[in-house]
């Protein structure tokens, strides 16, 4: 028997079973996160200090070196924090996305290190390599955001259509810039175009993700702002002739620094945020998200006005193609989201129809079962009314028939009630009911079964309280618990039904010294049709509906039911119900 004075092992087992999933998903990164935060702060502050010093006249190249060193540090912090967040996250989609962000930050930091090498060693190729890596950063970040987005938000089709006006406007910017004084060789022009379009695309994708309500969160804003700043800084940097880029770097350094700071901050926020799964994403009108590419189109249209047509004959065609792309994107997104909504409402209607059919079917089956049962029981009663005319054996046989017809009737009622539970249509007719009386009635009606099983059935009524309850349903709940306790307790055992008041609640406890419920079966106990291995092995009668019904009844009364159990020691079920006010 489980004493209430000590903490039984079963209680601990039950608790840990309930809490384990949460605990597992929270490794230990709070301390690590604190460490990483200080690293990040040191890196960022260091780089800002270097900027300040550079403004005061520190020589360009040395300033660039120090700043780059600080960035690399911040980058390392970002990678570590993102990787930690990825490890913690319970959502595989988010995990993949965070892993990609970690890779992106690592790539960017490697670029920063290469720029440092270029400045220190006075070499050109590390700078080119750095530029390629920074383009790669944008590509990987875009991939991360697309992976993170819900499936309906980005399809490859929409993505390509988004990219068209953005790439075209970037090409146009590069051409205009090169025409107005940027006489760079073709590779540089390509680089500028790639840089501009990739970072614009990154910002557009992120903006679209933010437009989906459930994706709005602080870390994401951090990543987006960081991408925009790094992109802007990179663009200014790339537009500068190669020979003077290191010095230009000094001018754009604050932009880079703030960008990297935001990147690391976003990663840290992500690592700290609770690892909750995102709520189910509602399909929104995806057409709305065509806004960013439409803005790019607007930029092109303005360009038609301000750019001399003779030197840039392609502007018109760029705009026309972009217009088609944006229109197509808007149309497709609208159609997709509408068909998604339609499919949902169709599915709802179908589910509702099948529910109605199920109800009808159940009502019919139950009616058809009850009619013959009425005759079986009725005639049996008529025969048993004159037991003297029956032989001992006949009487025993007829009692067996009676018991089994009772059982069949109970099964029919239980099945019907479970259907009500499923339809969430459990109806109760509440009236003032004495908890003690209810327990007493239940114990009285179970007394013969207890006696037959050689089990001591004890009532300890101490609630002296009334509740608002459906007498029949609550009686059914208690009968289920008591009959379970008797079924699973061997001869010589003890079943105690106890009522009390606790924290403004009426509590009914049914405690047995039975075989107990193995820990691995405890979680499924309230599932309908679930039967423990022991029940099946020992052929203990039951349908696996009793506890499903018990819980539904408790909940329909605004109460709850819980249990503690230890194998070979016993089980206690505890029903808590609100007192009548």
């Amino acid at each position, binding site marked *: 028997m489980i004493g209430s004075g000590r903490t039984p092992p079963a209680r601990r087992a039950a608790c840990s079973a309930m809490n384990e999933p949460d605990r597992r998903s929270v490794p230990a990164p709070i301390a690590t996160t604190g460490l990483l935060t200080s690293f990040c702060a040191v890196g960022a502050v260091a780089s800002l200090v270097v900027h300040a010093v550079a403004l005061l006249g520190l020589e360009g190249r040395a300033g660039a070196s120090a700043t780059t060193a600080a960035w690399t540090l911040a980058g390392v912090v970002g990678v570590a924090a993102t990787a930690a967040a990825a490890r913690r996250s319970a959502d595989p989609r988010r995990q993949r996305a965070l892993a990609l962000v970690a890779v992106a930050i690592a790539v960017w930091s490697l670029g920063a290190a290469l720029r440092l090498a270029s400045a220190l060693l006075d070499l050109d190729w590390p700078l080119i390599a750095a530029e390629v890596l920074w383009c790669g950063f944008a590509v990987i970040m875009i991939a991360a955001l697309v992976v993170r987005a819900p499936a309906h938000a980005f399809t490859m089709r929409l993505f390509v259509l988004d990219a068209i006006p953005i790439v075209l406007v970037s090409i146009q910017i590069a051409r205009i810039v090169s025409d107005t004084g940027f006489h760079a060789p073709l590779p540089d022009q390509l680089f500028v175009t790639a840089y501009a379009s990739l970072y614009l695309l990154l910002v557009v994708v992120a903006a679209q993700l933010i437009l989906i309500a459930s994706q709005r969160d602080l870390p994401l804003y951090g990543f987006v702002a960081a991408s925009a700043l790094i992109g802007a800084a990179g663009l200014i940097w790339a537009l500068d002739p190669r020979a003077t880029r290191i010095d230009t770097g000094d001018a754009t350094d604050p932009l880079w620094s703030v960008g990297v700071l935001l990147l690391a901050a976003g990663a840290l926020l992500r690592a700290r945020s609770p690892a909750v799964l995102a709520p189910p994403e509602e399909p929104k009108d995806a057409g709305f998200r065509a806004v960013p590419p439409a803005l790019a189109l607007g930029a092109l249209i303005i360009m038609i006005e301000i750019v001399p047509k003779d030197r840039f004959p392609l502007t018109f065609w760029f705009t026309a193609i972009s217009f088609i792309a944006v229109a197509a994107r808007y149309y497709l997104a609208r159609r997709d989201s509408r068909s998604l909504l339609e499919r949902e409402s169709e599915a709802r209607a179908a589910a509702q129809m099948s529910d109605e059919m199920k109800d009808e079917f159940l*009502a019919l089956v*139950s*009616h*058809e079962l*009850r*009619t013959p*049962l*009425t*005759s079986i*029981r*009725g*005639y049996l*009663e*008529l025969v048993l*009314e004159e037991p003297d005319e029956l032989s001992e054996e006949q009487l025993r046989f007829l009692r067996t028939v009676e018991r089994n017809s009772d059982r069949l*009737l109970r099964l029919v009622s239980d099945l*019907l009630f479970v259907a009500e539970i499923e339809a969430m*249509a459990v*109806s109760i007719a509440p009236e003032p009911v004495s908890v003690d009386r209810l327990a007493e009635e239940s114990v009285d009606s179970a007394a013969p079964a207890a006696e037959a099983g050689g089990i001591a059935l004890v009532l300890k009524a101490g609630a002296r309280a009334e509740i608002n309850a459906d007498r029949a349903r609550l009686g059914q709940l208690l009968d289920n618990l008591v009959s379970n306790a008797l079924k699973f307790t061997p001869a010589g055992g003890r079943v105690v039904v106890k009522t009390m008041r606790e924290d403004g609640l009426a509590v009914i406890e049914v405690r047995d010294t039975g075989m107990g419920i193995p820990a691995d079966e405890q979680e499924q106990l309230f599932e309908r049709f679930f039967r423990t291995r022991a029940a099946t092995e020992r052929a203990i009668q039951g349908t696996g509906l009793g506890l499903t019904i018990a819980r539904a009844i408790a909940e329909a009364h605004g109460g709850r039911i819980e249990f503690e159990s230890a194998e070979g020691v016993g089980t206690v079920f505890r029903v808590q119900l609100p007192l009548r006010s």
Partner: protein
Amino acid sequence: MSGPFVLVADDDADIRELVALTLQRRGYAVVVAADGAEAVERARERRPDLAILDVRMPKLDGYGVLSALRADTEASYVPVVVLTASVQEGERARARAIGAEVFLQKPFDRNELLAHVERLLAASRGTVQRERR
């Protein structure tokens, strides 16, 4: 003179006989009907002191019989017990609304049925006596 006269309508022959037997053993006179139309006819032939009606019956369901009884000035005071195997929600409320005194679900408890019958007959005797005065 025999005991009170009870009309029992049920399309299931076994249940019809069961209810009739149960009542007869207590000394009631019983007339049976296998469907709603027959029940109305029997009630017209001789006004019963009480009617026990099944709901699902061919030709005319129990509610139809009940309405017919209530519309008939002769039989409008006849107390009615609705006896059904149906478990659909609202059935009880519907029976009450049309004017059934008692709603019982099959399988019914014999003693409960008999207690209701006795109570209703006693009450209606009182009503009839008051009317006569």
